[in-house]
């Protein structure tokens, strides 16, 4: 899946490490999600959505949809 994590992160001036700390995951996890190498579980996706104050579908979207 593709996602807008990098943009959302940049809007808040957060580094990958900042986001990782807020999510309580490793920086590698944030990097892997951001680059589309790893799709997070639903609980982690919801955590991301809550953190950014957005619905999940405004953060993640299917490859074919773009």
């Amino acid at each position, binding site marked *: 899946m593709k996602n807008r994590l990098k943009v959302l992160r940049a809007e808040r001036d957060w580094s990958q490490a900042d986001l990782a700390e807020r999510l*309580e995951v490793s920086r590698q*996890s944030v990097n892997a999600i951001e*680059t589309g190498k*790893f799709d997070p579980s639903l609980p*982690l996706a919801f955590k991301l959505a809550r953190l950014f104050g957005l619905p999940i579908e405004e953060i993640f979207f299917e490859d074919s949809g773009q």
Partner: protein
Amino acid sequence: MKCSTNNPAQRRFFVRFVWSMAAYVVLLVVAVLAFVRWHPAGALAYGLAVLPALPILAMLVVIGAYLAEEKDEFIRKMQIEMLLGGTGLTLSVVSVWGFLENFTSVRHMDLLWVYPLFWVCTGISALVVWMRYRS
């Protein structure tokens, strides 16, 4: 005992693994000395022979416990991929070697080498997984 990671599950894994390794060394020495000095026989010999294998089994339990305790889902996925790759590679090597032993004149591989081979294969697998996910 010092461990460089801040990940609690990895710290616990490291400590447990080191203790298992230490137990392995101690029990191996005990078993070797017992066989050299007292030449045990019967059930005692079987018990002593199996003794050094117990910490090895414990190491496998430690790996399982780590995977169950690791809260970072991406790290857990990477570790599972590394271990699966290592297991698959080990099974491939020993299966091929087994047939080579049956039909050709290659040297016999002692079963004791399978466990160290598993770690070598897991190391190779870890490198492949790391390359796949590197930043």
